[in-house]
């Protein structure tokens, strides 16, 4: 029984948090081999080798894997799948792009966003925007799964797994990379941050959204946003929290001027402590908030930023 786990490698760098959470999630299923694929993946592989519980690391270094295009990475995973019962990955956008393709190449179902591993064939996953939790048992010989990172603690450091070379697969050459638009930031990454401050439509403009960022910076928090705030251009798309954005479970989540639609709650209701600031005391967000403050964010937030 063995697991092949796709490490999260972006521009040659391992996303250690997401990868280590996925490693911890599948640890009970068998020996875990982490695959690091990229145009540059050797350093990422060396880093993956230090994750506790990793039995082996495979490097696949070739230009074709450079931008995590789905087709070459899926072809690689499908070619390597032979000896493994589980093919796994953290449920990042890159893996969600690749893993269903791998599953179909292997003629098996994909089991996305697993929040609990029960046994080798049985998994829990949220459905209906997290309003229901399904337990599914796979009848397939191989299980292709993605792991909801917010549901697992990261595996520790101190591992020293051997690093080997993966046999590379042919690049189907169906798509090519043109450009990335990535905003560099010194803030903590949204899905691994201990604290998150999110703003909604109520912020009213990109300039005023800076109020959220100032509070976040004071708290050492990551910044999140509702869909409405992203759609309106107050915040970039990668800040969206929710059913179709990022799923977070920090120790502290502060929702400012967010009504609490089910699609937003789907991305944050497993946070440990939830604070809601909203001028409407009937806003649904208050039903899940540990601490609710009814008030105008334009006075409350600057005051809060001054006092924390």
């Amino acid at each position, binding site marked *: 029984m063995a697991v092949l786990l796709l490490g999260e490698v972006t521009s040659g760098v391992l996303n250690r948090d997401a990868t280590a959470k996925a490693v911890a999630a599948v640890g009970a299923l068998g020996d875990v081999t982490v695959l690091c694929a990229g145009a540059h993946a050797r350093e990422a592989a060396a880093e993956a080798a230090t994750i506790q519980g990793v039995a082996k690391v495979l490097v696949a270094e070739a230009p074709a894997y450079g931008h995590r295009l789905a087709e070459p990475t899926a072809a690689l995973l499908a070619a390597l799948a032979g000896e493994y019962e589980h093919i796994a990955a953290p449920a990042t956008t890159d893996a969600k792009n690749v893993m269903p393709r791998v599953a179909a190449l292997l003629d098996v179902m994909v089991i996305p966003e697993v929040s609990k591993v029960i046994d080798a064939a049985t998994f829990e996953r949220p459905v*209906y925007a997290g309003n229901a939790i399904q337990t599914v048992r796979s*009848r397939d010989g191989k299980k292709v799964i993605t792991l909801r990172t917010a549901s697992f603690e990261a595996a520790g450091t101190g591992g020293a797994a051997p690093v080997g070379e993966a046999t590379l697969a042919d690049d189907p050459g169906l798509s090519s990379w043109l450009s990335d638009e990535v905003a560099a930031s010194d803030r903590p990454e949204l899905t691994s941050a201990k604290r998150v401050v999110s703003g909604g439509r109520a912020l009213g403009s990109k300039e005023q959204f800076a109020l959220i960022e100032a509070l976040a910076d004071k708290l050492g928090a990551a910044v999140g946003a509702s869909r409405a705030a992203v759609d309106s251009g107050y915040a970039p798309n990668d800040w969206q929290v929710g059913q179709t954005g990022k799923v977070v479970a920090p120790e502290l989540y502060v929702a400012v001027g967010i009504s609490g639609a089910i699609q937003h709650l789907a991305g944050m209701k497993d946070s440990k402590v939830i604070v809601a600031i909203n001028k409407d005391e009937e806003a649904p967000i208050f039903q899940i908030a540990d601490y609710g403050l009814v008030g105008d964010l334009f006075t409350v937030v600057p005051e809060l930023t001054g006092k924390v």
Partner: protein
Amino acid sequence: MKILVPVKRVIDYNVKARVRADGSGVDLANVKMSMNPFDEIAVEEAIRLKEKGAADEVVVVSIGVKQAQETLRTALAMGADRAILVVAAEDVGTDIEPLAVAKILKAVVDAEAPRLVIAGKQAIDNDMNATGQMLAALLGWGQATFASKLEIADDSAKVTREVDGGLQTIKVRLPAIVTADLRLNEPRYASLPNIMKAKKKPLEEKTAADYGVDVSPRLEVVSTREPEGRSAGIKVGSVDELVSKLKEAGVI
């Protein structure tokens, strides 16, 4: 160019799903059903391409229960030209898995020969986010998922994708699969005259068996439960009180 758009009939996004007390699933009896929101975006995009002259026919297809014809009529009223209903289930509670849906769609693609398939990124009931990618694999086509911008050139599509780090733009050779994300466009509402006209547009009915696809599930749903609830919190009267509560809780 012909565009194929798969559309799924799902619980309306405004309705909160309720888990049946016996753990057998989500109660869908007498619940408002609508077109999956991402599929409305996909249909809209296809129609816009047709309006721009980049496409000449938009075919919509739905797989599921017979009532999915309502969903197809909605797509026809938005402006799609023709619809295919593949009846594959009798009970509204039976969800057809992405792998089986993708196999049926592959057969439809083989018969219809579209150059572009625009699917939704994710069905809001099963939250799978898989069908488009699986269809691309089965066809051996390229894929551009989570699209927030789509431009068609002669033999390729330029697609901007919403990814964890921001935005990525790729070029994918046609024929290809694109999956629509929230910010690709804002879908139109169908006007009353168009709803009337849609009733006369062709809607062909098939079954999964017509395509020789076995739709029996690979994932057995053992049980469905409610998520852990949160205990009710408190309202604080001031910023000072909030700050002291957060200090007590040890989170700041």
